[in-house]
């Protein structure tokens, strides 16, 4: 039996020595995901921070075979790998990993194709809510009013004008068996979900909320605290959609979003009205999810 800490294997397959910033949320997501997947895994990575910090030739942070192609094609490369292994009778976990830009924006078509074809691949999107590798530009995962370099806090533009794309639902609407959201503040939950995703006989999708201190502008020792605030204030709802049925992680004593916002430079410009609107937005989404949970099967499963 492998040595465990807090229910997770002690062995690291995503090793220290990579060059992420200190306090990097996505780097934690990589560590936990790999602990869940184990050694019998191939990782297919999209271009983005986690790819760049972990693979500068001739060094590698990965103790499993790893391939990176382009920004948007991790799902398609993974599809080819899966089919090749299948035809050779090889049973290997395939993890495809992409940031929010790779997944919500440029690679959405490729992801949709991979899911529709039913490839047995677990796709993990680590969401730091912008294109961080290229210096913090807006993605369709950037939240309402957030300041990025392309959604500045100016006269006409007051941060991002549009809310975050509801990607887990878009994926669930493909009829997959397993979709989940998770965060880096609850490693056990994320770990279990990756294990579950990999065990599904077909595609699965996990969206992991992973704050970036550089882009969100907060002190490097606050990554976990901020993630906790996002969960307690319901900014980042944690749920599973298994066989079309949504199960939401309960939040006891839901808190207001103020503290979450105040901890981050990217929301520094917000006025009272905008904070109010944002609170309203978060509350509405939470209400929608809690109601959806009572309805039983809300997505058709075709796979």
């Amino acid at each position: 039996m492998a040595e465990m800490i807090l229910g997770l294997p002690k062995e690291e397959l995503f090793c220290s020595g990579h060059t992420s910033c200190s306090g990097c949320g996505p780097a934690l997501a990589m560590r936990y995901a790999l602990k869940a997947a184990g050694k019998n895994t191939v990782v297919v990575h999209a271009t983005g921070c986690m790819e760049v910090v972990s693979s500068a030739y001739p060094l590698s942070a990965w103790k499993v075979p790893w391939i990176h192609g382009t920004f948007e094609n991790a799902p398609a490369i993974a599809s080819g790998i899966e089919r090749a292994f299948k035809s050779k009778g090889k049973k290997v976990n395939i993890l495809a990993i992409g940031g929010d830009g790779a997944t919500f924006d440029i690679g959405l078509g490729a992801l949709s194709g991979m899911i529709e074809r039913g490839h047995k691949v677990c796709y993990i999107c680590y969401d730091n809510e912008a294109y961080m590798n290229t210096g913090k530009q807006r993605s369709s995962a950037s939240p309402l009013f957030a300041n990025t370099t392309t959604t500045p806090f100016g006269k006409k533009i007051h941060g991002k004008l549009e809310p975050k794309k509801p990607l887990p639902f878009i994926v669930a609407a493909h009829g997959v068996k397993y979709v989940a959201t998770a965060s880096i503040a609850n490693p056990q939950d994320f770990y279990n979900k990756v294990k579950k995703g990999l065990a599904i006989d077909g595609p699965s999708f996990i969206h992991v909320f992973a704050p970036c201190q550089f882009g969100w502008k907060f002190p490097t020792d606050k990554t976990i605290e901020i993630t906790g605030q996002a969960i307690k204030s319901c900014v980042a709802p944690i749920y599973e959609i298994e066989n079309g049925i949504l199960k939401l992680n309960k939040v006891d004593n839901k808190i207001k979003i103020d503290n979450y916002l105040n901890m981050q430079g990217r929301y520094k410009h917000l006025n009272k009205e905008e904070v109010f609107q944002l609170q309203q937005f978060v509350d509405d989404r939470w209400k929608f999810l809690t109601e959806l949970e009572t309805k039983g099967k809300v997505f058709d499963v075709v796979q």
Partner: protein
Amino acid sequence: MDTHIVERLAEYVDNGELNSELIYAESEHSMFSAAAGASAAGARSFTASSSQGLALGFEVLGMISGMRLPVVAAIANRALSSPINIWNDHSDTMSVKDMGWIQLYVESAQESFDTMVQAFKIAEETLIPVMVCLDGFTLSHVTEPLELENVSSFVGKYRGKYVLDPKKPLLMGPVATPDSYMEIKELQQKDMLDSKNVVKKIHNEYKKKYKRGYGDGLIETYNLKGKKKALILMGSAVGTARVVSDEEKDFGVIKLKCFRPFPEEELKKVCKDVKEIAVIDRSLSFGQDSAVYTEVKKCLPNKKISGFVAGLGGRDITRKTIKDAVNQIGKEGQIWLK
């Protein structure tokens, strides 16, 4: 149009003639990517595309060659938008000539078949992807009696060198900083230049076994012996050029089969006694002479060479086109034969 190719492949897989997995990608970008993934996982992989599809896949072409994945593709040459035009010319593959793929241009359906078979062996021996370029419609949608061979013994078992395997972890497609990028590209360039010999070798092995060959595998000549004039071109129009050469008897034909790597020494050799050359390009390089003409001029600086543009967007290259080219050798600038 690559549709006929993939339709027939589906048929072969379905009736058990071909033991293979089919992946139905949602786009050409994903299609090339899935082929790359399968190749990286240790499977012999093939795909087909053309025109806009190839243009969409552009990014992945460089990714595949940079990762040294021996993917093979059939490209049915067609024009690029805009205006949209589904017919034959060489704009698509000539635009990706610098993406690190071996490019072989064929003249007939028979040559497509023979070259395709060789392409797998070439790719696997050199770790360079190979693109077999066949004229859209003229070759991709043609009915032609074919001599088919059972080629499994010739191609042999898949010999991919680097494979994603949890027992031997490796990294494919890492970041290369300014400290290492040039060395990696230098190696790739060296191997690309050297691959010429592998193309020749495998062509000759095939010729020996099946008694069908195309020059030395890089260049094929026709009626060239003793001629002072030559016409250089690629693809199916070579057939027409042969006919005109037989009729007119005043020029020989040089078919450039391998455009990448460019067979410089071989071309110099076959042109030793040639004084005047016409080059026909079926694609443009906006703002400069077309690619075949430019590269032939560079290779043969002391000959009288004229460059012609013909057959764009499906315009037929007729006997008259060929004659017009040969008769106008000596003219300066880019000459359009419409």
